[in-house]
């Protein structure tokens, strides 16, 4: 009786495995939900029933969380909840904008360098490594200090350019791993053009790594923006961003810890979700791993 049960279980397990592999899991969808909520709130912040993030209320300074002020208020009596929501705009815009520049430039160059090799590869790699030799944070601080007046647009450009060599390096390495396989030669002797090989044969192989690195890159860039804001080099006050809120909280940390906790928690959760989704997607789309 028990042995028959074991056998039937054995027989069923192979069929069940691929089904389970296709599922992304509850945690994944929770992360997607949280990110969507953040993005939607950032987009519709103006029409949501929020306090004006710049409105100062001197009768409610440094108050703790309450029904009226969900996250409390800062030292100028501004609503922290509203400032966190409006502040996410800066982070999301910098994250997506900078990565658009980073991938727009770095990914095609990385794929081309890995596929063509030779002089093109040598020159591009050399250039990128020289670029990488400067610590990104120092380089961005230097450029942003002199490129005034500061605006979100300039920050996106500077951070985006700084991310190009990183994207280049990751995409070049993963393309090279694929470009040396025989199916590329097979496509070539089928008469495929170089462009076709890059787009149809190599891109789908590199895309999963690209997508996961994109999400992790967005997270890294948001952190970088946070660091810049903390140093007072991001968007100028009073415009809120997660980074400059944390910066403002520095002096009043002992009297009002809420001002540091909420933007930090918002940023932390946002980055955690991005990283988790990136990692989950990479393993999900990796069909080459599927074994019978």
């Amino acid at each position, binding site marked *: 009786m028990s042995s028959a049960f074991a056998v039937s279980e054995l027989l069923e397990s192979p069929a069940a495995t691929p089904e389970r592999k296709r599922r992304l899991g509850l945690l994944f969808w929770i992360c997607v939900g949280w990110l969507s909520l953040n993005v939607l709130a950032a987009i519709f912040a103006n029409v949501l029933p929020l306090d004006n993030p710049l409105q100062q209320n001197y009768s409610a300074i440094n108050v703790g969380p309450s029904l009226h002020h969900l996250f409390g208020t800062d030292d100028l009596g501004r609503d922290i909840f509203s400032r966190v929501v409006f502040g996410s705009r800066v982070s999301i815009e910098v994250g997506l904008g900078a990565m658009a520049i980073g991938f727009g430039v770095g990914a095609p160059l990385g794929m081309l360098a890995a596929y*063509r*090799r*030779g002089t093109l590869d040598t020159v591009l790699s050399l250039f990128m490594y020289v670029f990488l030799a400067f610590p990104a944070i120092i380089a961005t601080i230097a450029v942003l200090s002199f490129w005034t007046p500061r605006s979100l647009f300039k920050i996106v450009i500077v951070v985006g350019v700084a991310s190009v060599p990183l994207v280049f390096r990751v995409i070049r390495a993963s393309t090279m791993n694929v470009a040396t*396989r*025989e*199916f590329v*030669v*097979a*496509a*070539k*002797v*089928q*008469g*495929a*053009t170089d462009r*076709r090989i890059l787009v*149809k*044969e190599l891109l*789908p*192989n590199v895309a999963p790594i690209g997508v996961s690195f994109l999400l992790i890159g967005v997270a890294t860039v948001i952190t970088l923006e946070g660091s810049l804001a903390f140093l007072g080099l991001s968007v100028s006050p009073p415009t809120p961003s997660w980074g400059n809120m944390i910066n403002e909280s520095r002096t009043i940390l002992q009297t009002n810890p809420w001002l540091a906790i909420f933007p930090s928690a918002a940023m932390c959760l946002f980055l955690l979700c991005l990283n988790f989704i990136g990692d989950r997607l990479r393993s999900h789309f990796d*069909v*080459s*791993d*599927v*074994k*019978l």
Partner: protein
Amino acid sequence: MSDSSPLLEVTDLCTTFTTPTGPVAAVSGVSFTLNHDETLGIVGESGSGKTVLSRTVMGLQPRRNVVVTGSSRLNGVELVGASEAEKRRVWGLEVAMIFQDPMTSLNPVMRIGKQIDEILRVRRGLSRSAARDRAIELLELVGIPSPTQRYREYPGALSGGMRQRVVIAAALAGSPQLLMADEPTTGLDVTIQAQILNLLDDLRARLRMSVVLVTHDLGVVATRTSRLVVMYAGRVVEVGSTRDLFARHRMPYTRALLEGSPRLSNPAHTRLVTIPGRPPNLAQLPAGCSFAPRCAYATAQCHVERPELQPADGLGHYFACWNPLPTPTGVS
């Protein structure tokens, strides 16, 4: 298509790689012709230049660090030194290639059907549905069960033998006249090897193609080729009809290769004869015959002077040896 002019004409083909330690002559002075509807075998040890030869013949070589001289004409079109655009016109439609390892010669993230019908849509200009129908037909032709379902699957879902069938189907999609098969069965089980080879043979006859079969296994070429080219250290050392080479080979290397193949007629536990020594370093070839250091018949002359190909009795049978083996008597 006149049968008098050969499909493939290779003349004095040399492939030399430029390496930090000096030039390496992977293929030197190779000439042969391949007629329509014929199977040619290229045999030799590992490192004898078979694979480089088969790729050079197609005009497929690395972009850098290689010098190719001589000529390789397919239907009169020169492929050596041709531009990428010129070669692309020929590749896929007139000549196709099957690779050694079916595990790496299919794109793991592209559906099987797409890898076959890509060429039909791009090169032959077929509509999406026509290309799909043709791809399923091809999958059926190469003996893949339930091709309609397989069409939508990824290569990861297929076994090695099935993948090699897909590779063959993809190669056939452009209806080439010449199929280059570079060790098509090396990556497969012995039982699957025979199936794939028989399939190739059958397809060649049905589709009236010519096949170049590159292999190190004489058992593979024995019954499936009409002519053989034996290569050693990048040179042709003997060429002739398969029958002549098996029965009346003159070059000691050919005999050594034959003796190295297992035979069912041998008694059990017969030790296989191995060729003593190792293949020569292609960067420092000896002055004389490359095989001389390993040859039991070598004389002083063999070490200083390289033998050229000279005609033997059989039609189109040539060998390069100073001390050829005697023609066995009693064989007509």
